[in-house]
């Protein structure tokens, strides 16, 4: 279904592939000949079957603009995006959950208000603003962190992480408010639940109640939210990747769309779609592991 959607969407884009490759001065005959050679003058169904057939054998085709295999460009970009997503994930998930739970435990008091208000405010700031502010403060004024995300080719793991910190912080600013709010709401709901009162009544201490009963239930919606953000973290960071000049898959797809590099565009969108579906699947598995009711629902 995903492949059909991606292929159909790319067919809707305006522009003649042959004209785009050969340039504006090429004759109509040459353009038609190239379109025939590329097979883009065939019926759409035939093109789709051909495309998906090659795809399942790992053949993503040749980039129309750069005349090199798509996989040679998309592969490194995907790896870069996964690296950035991983660093951002490691920073934002614990921070947001701790912030959300802490705010819930101090419901209505100053810490709750500070966390909720600052989270919402940061979420409301467009990422290109927050990224520029971070570049200005930590990159240019304090000179603590590199202003680009791409580390030198021979950089070790620590250096690579250092280069990814600033764009990751920009993502933390975007996502913190959203995830922390979900964690807070889930925690408050769990704190008010009957089973929490029962746990207290049977004599458990607060730490045990929070760890064994509250967190386990409160994190369920948070996990679902985090899973939906994985697609964005890997394929939707065009602005962040542009500002930190990072060769991620988002920028590759964006450039392919601008240059009408259809083979690159189709493959890129499909890869992001697969990543998104995988993240959702992992979230579902985690969900069922944490929530026995889901796990046993299928058995019943």
């Amino acid at each position, binding site marked *: 279904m995903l492949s059909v959607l991606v292929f159909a969407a790319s067919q809707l884009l305006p522009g003649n592939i042959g004209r785009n490759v050969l340039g504006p*001065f*090429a004759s109509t005959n040459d353009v038609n000949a190239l379109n025939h050679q590329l097979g883009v003058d065939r019926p759409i169904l035939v093109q789709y079957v051909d495309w998906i057939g090659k795809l399942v054998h790992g053949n993503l085709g040749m980039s129309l603009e750069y005349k090199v295999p798509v996989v040679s460009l998309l592969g490194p970009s995907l790896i870069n995006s996964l690296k950035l997503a991983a660093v951002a994930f490691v920073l934002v998930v614990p921070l947001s959950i701790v912030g959300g739970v802490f705010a819930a435990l101090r419901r209505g008091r100053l810490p709750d208000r500070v966390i909720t208000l600052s989270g919402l405010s940061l979420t409301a700031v467009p990422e290109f603003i927050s990224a520029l502010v971070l570049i200005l403060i930590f990159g240019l004024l304090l000179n603590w962190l590199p*202003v680009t995300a791409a580390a030198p080719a021979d950089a070790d793991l620590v250096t690579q992480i250092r280069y990814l910190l600033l764009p990751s912080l920009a993502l933390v600013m975007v996502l913190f408010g959203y995830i922390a709010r979900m964690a807070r709401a889930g925690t408050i709901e769990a704190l008010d639940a009957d089973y929490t009162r029962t746990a207290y009544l049977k004599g458990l201490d607060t730490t045990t109640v929070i760890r064994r009963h509250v967190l386990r239930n409160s994190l369920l919606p948070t996990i679902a939210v985090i899973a939906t953000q994985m697609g964005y973290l890997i394929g939707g960071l065009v602005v962040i990747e542009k500002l930190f000049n990072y*060769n991620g898959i988002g920028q*590759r797809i964006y450039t392919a769309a601008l240059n009408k590099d259809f083979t690159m565009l189709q493959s890129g969108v499909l890869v992001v779609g697969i990543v998104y579906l995988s993240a959702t699947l992992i979230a579902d598995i985690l969900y069922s592991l944490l929530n026995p009711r889901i796990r046993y629902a299928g058995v019943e």
Partner: protein
Amino acid sequence: MDWQTRGRLDEVRRAAGPIENTVIDELLGRKVDRRTFIQRATVFGLSASAIGTVLIAAGCGPSSSTTTGKVGGRLKMGIIPPPAHDIEPHTFADQGALETGSIAGEHLIRSAANLKLVPELAVSWGPNSDASTWTVKLRPNVKFQTGQTMTADDIVTTYERLVSPNSGSQALSAFKGVLSPGGTTKADSLTVKFQLDNPTASFPYLLSSTTYQSIMLPANYRLGTFTSKPQTTGAFKLTSYTPGVGAKYDRNPDWWGGRPPLDGVDVTYYTDAAAADAALLGGTIDLIGQIQLATDRALFNNSKIQIFGGRGATHRQVPMRVDLNNPLKDPQVRQAIALTLDRPAIVNTLFSKYADVGNDTPWAAVYPSSVGEPDVPQRKQDINKAKQLMAAAGFSNGFSITLTTEQTGEIPQLAQIIQNSVKAINVDMKLSILTATAYFDGSQLGPPSGWGNTPWLNAPINITDWGHRSVPNVFLTSALQTNGVWNAAHYSNPQFDAAAKAFIGAISIDDQRKYAKQAETILLQDTPVIFPYFYNYLAAGSQSVKGYYADPQGTVFLTQTSLG
């Protein structure tokens, strides 16, 4: 003048042909200044020693300044935007590609600062009596990075590819009507003859890096292999290239020019000006190939940054279709629109001090052939006259029109300025601002096949970016002459065509200015295109970058650049 100087001058005169002697007479007769003389003398192939002799004879002796930079280090350079296509020199059409190719590539002649021509792979060149045939002597013992020795065969093959209508060459617009297939021939292993379609006094500029597609490659060069194997003659070898990410160059140990100061160059591509600016300010890169005041203000007036400026003829054109059935068909209306613009204010807003005011002709102030005031009056804002012209044309109540343009540099701001300016004559201008890709999309076959369907050659009024040229010939032949391949105004005036043709063939500066005046006067009357300004090509670097020259054409020339 003492007898020794006189003797040396006579020797130079005897060795020179009639055209070269005309150029010498221009300096001795005080018709041109020292700088213009050097420009013109290099065009006609006078040697450096001959130029020095003439300058001494004229009482304005040669000056030379050589700077020796620190040897070693790798320059980290930012290029914005990345090449849009694969790197193939004869098809270069975008900034990223030409900057990438030019770091490794060389041309017969280098167009240097102040439009001076410097020998590169050619050691000398000269015309016949009417400048219809040019003979170029090649530098001996030049090796391609493949190990082959450069000969005339390589030059003939490269030029035949550049002028072939079937090769996808983007240099066709420059050579149209000047050099055709079969016009480049080998005289001997180190001599090439160019038989031109028409006399062209400025032909050496077309042989220079101004035609940035003319990077010399071996005769057996295979298309599509430019980035996979080093095979140019330049001081740096392209050793790795990743589309959209970057490129690496290492010093060429066999370069004919000796050892350049830099060990190598590491290029990073940027898609966003703010990212490139931050990288330069943060010390991640040393140099940005091209910047603009409108998009890179953070770099100006910053003590850590030096701005490299190259005064040139880079500009925007505002063509108005003369052949559509709308008010723009009337030259009075086109004049009225041009008269609403406050050009000094536009230049100040968009470029500060880094631009010259335009006068609705392609003769930028930087050209020696530019006539200027009082012979050709500068067009200034005159709302009353504009209103009178609109009334005379029957449009005192104005009209509505859509201006189509591209999202490039300061162009959207210029579009808004024009939109606001024409309100004074009741013109309701709507703006259609497209991405550059969409703006140049479609076919543009050029006459006689028509102008295709691309927006930039078919919109009623538009704004298009034009790069620098060392002489205005391409602007005349492509954008303004009848059936010009990029004639977006669809303008046609036989008197203008004749004046432009005479200008291109004129050898003496007096004749060039005579025909330029004729052409400029016609253009001011007809106003098919508004030329609001000509702006400087700007690059920015850290203070450690020495010996860099910002080429108005956009090529990157690093053989004399060093770090510290």
